[in-house]
């Protein structure tokens, strides 16, 4: 806990507000971030599912990708060289989940891509943002301008009361549907708003100029339905929603097929599609689409109450010495009032209902492969 006295941790534009609200700060991806406020992880989690939670995710990277031709379609075609998604097909005002792949079909990062009409707006993970920007420059600088929006904060407002809370400051938002995205005036501030998030709940992510972030957040927190929520609850919320955490559930060694992210690769980029392949690792990824992969990311529900955490080794039975997989995320799901986990298993053992065993403190604990999301999502489609 003394680490941040020695290492120069970066601060988000909302750092002072976190301290004023009694946050417990921890180092995360080079930033001094709130892991929880005075309410604690459990209450913050449940509040987000019941009312609305406000998250500071300003550590994440925000980038603009603009074609030198001025045509957004050219930027989309360029980006398709680095991701297996249909970027050309993202309509203006819409957003899509994507991944940067490497030559082995592994994932360098996952990201959101929005079409803002004349350019693309990208949101990438904090820990990867410098590499992602360099990756874009290396491969796309001949056709595109890449601008890092380091002077903007990013906040997420999530939960069933997120719409009513944001609607008080921006009349437009009620008509937005899940994954709509674009510039909006919020509390008289020029923002970028998307109807998306990382909790499984309906909600919004709002990019705001750094010098206006505190005013916007103060206006949102004026609403008694809205509480600030730390990274602790952000993690338990996304885990219950079955959403991957980059660097844990997916990384450079996992492909989109192994990661059970086939849904995120549109048909137009798969074999037989009009723009099939053409991204790093396409041979491996497309052959896995055809033939399947030997392992797969699955949801796991421990039978008992003991949380099974990241790193726990998985076995086919209570006695076997042969490890068959590993837990990549795990903890306690406050909304389920039960432990939940995710991990990789041999595809043959990945069917829902299959029992496997995790080694926890020298004991073998039974878990069942379970469908995700563990908690149904409430996106406004």
């Amino acid at each position, binding site marked *: 806990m003394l680490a941040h006295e020695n290492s120069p941790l970066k601060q988000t534009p909302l750092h002072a507000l976190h301290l004023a609200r009694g946050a417990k700060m921890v180092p995360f991806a080079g930033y001094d971030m709130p*892991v*929880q406020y005075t309410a*604690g*992880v*459990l*209450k913050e*989690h449940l509040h987000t599912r019941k009312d609305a939670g406000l998250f500071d995710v300003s550590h994440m990277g925000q980038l603009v990708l603009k074609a030198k031709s001025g045509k957004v379609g050219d930027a989309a075609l360029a980006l398709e060289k680095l991701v297996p998604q249909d970027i050309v097909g993202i309509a203006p005002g819409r957003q899509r989940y994507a991944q940067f792949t490497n030559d082995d079909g592994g994932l360098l990062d996952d990201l959101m891509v929005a079409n803002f009409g004349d350019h693309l707006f990208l949101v990438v993970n904090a820990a990867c943002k410098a590499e992602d920007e360099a990756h874009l420059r290396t491969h796309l600088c001949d056709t595109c301008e890449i601008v890092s929006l380091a002077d903007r904060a990013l906040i997420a407002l999530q939960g069933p009361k997120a719409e009513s809370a944001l609607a008080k400051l921006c009349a437009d938002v009620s008509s937005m549907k899940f994954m709509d995205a674009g510039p909006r005036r919020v509390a008289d501030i020029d923002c970028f708003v998307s109807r998306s998030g990382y909790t499984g709940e309906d909600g919004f992510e709002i990019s705001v100029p750094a010098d206006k972030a505190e005013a916007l957040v103060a206006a949102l927190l004026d609403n008694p339905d809205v509480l600030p929520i730390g990274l*602790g609850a952000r993690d*338990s919320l996304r885990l219950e929603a079955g959403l991957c955490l980059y660097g844990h559930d997916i990384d450079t060694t996992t492909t989109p097929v192994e990661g059970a992210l086939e849904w995120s690769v549109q048909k137009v980029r798969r074999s037989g599609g009009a723009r099939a392949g053409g991204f790093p690792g396409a041979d491996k990824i497309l052959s896995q689409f055809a033939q399947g992969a030997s392992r797969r990311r699955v949801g796991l529900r421990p039978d008992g*109450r*003991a*949380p099974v*955490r990241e790193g726990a080794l998985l076995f086919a039975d209570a006695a076997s010495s042969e490890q068959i997989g590993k837990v990549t995320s795990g*903890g*306690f799901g*406050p909304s389920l009032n039960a*432990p939940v986990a995710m991990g990789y298993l041999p595809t043959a053992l990945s069917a829902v209902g299959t029992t496997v065993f995790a080694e926890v*403190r020298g004991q073998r604990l039974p878990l069942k492969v379970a469908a995700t999301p563990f908690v149904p999502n409430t996106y406004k489609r």
Partner: protein
Amino acid sequence: MTTLYTSDHEWLRIEGDVATIGITDYAQSQLGDVVFVELPKVGRSLKKAEAAAVVESVKAASDVYAPITGEVIEVNEALAAEPALVNSDAGGKAWFFKLRIADKGELGGLMDEAAYAAHTA
């Protein structure tokens, strides 16, 4: 009845040759919301500093060490059903286990309330 403390944030209430052991209110406040407690089996002989129980919060798992050597004579089954007792009453209803003290000499190395208060200040 004497209450003693360890630097690992456990408390011991000494009654005759029995020590009742739990974690301190300071410890629960650092752990956050407790969601699972694993207790030792009755009859188990514990050596001083041996991992005896596990307390898991939403955030992480933490070991509870035997502060002294002894045999487990009773465990608090209520914690299995209601782990949140650790947050609401760490120093009382949320005791973890009782040990029959093997060597009273080991108690000399523990802190009294004033020393523990200074330790967590």
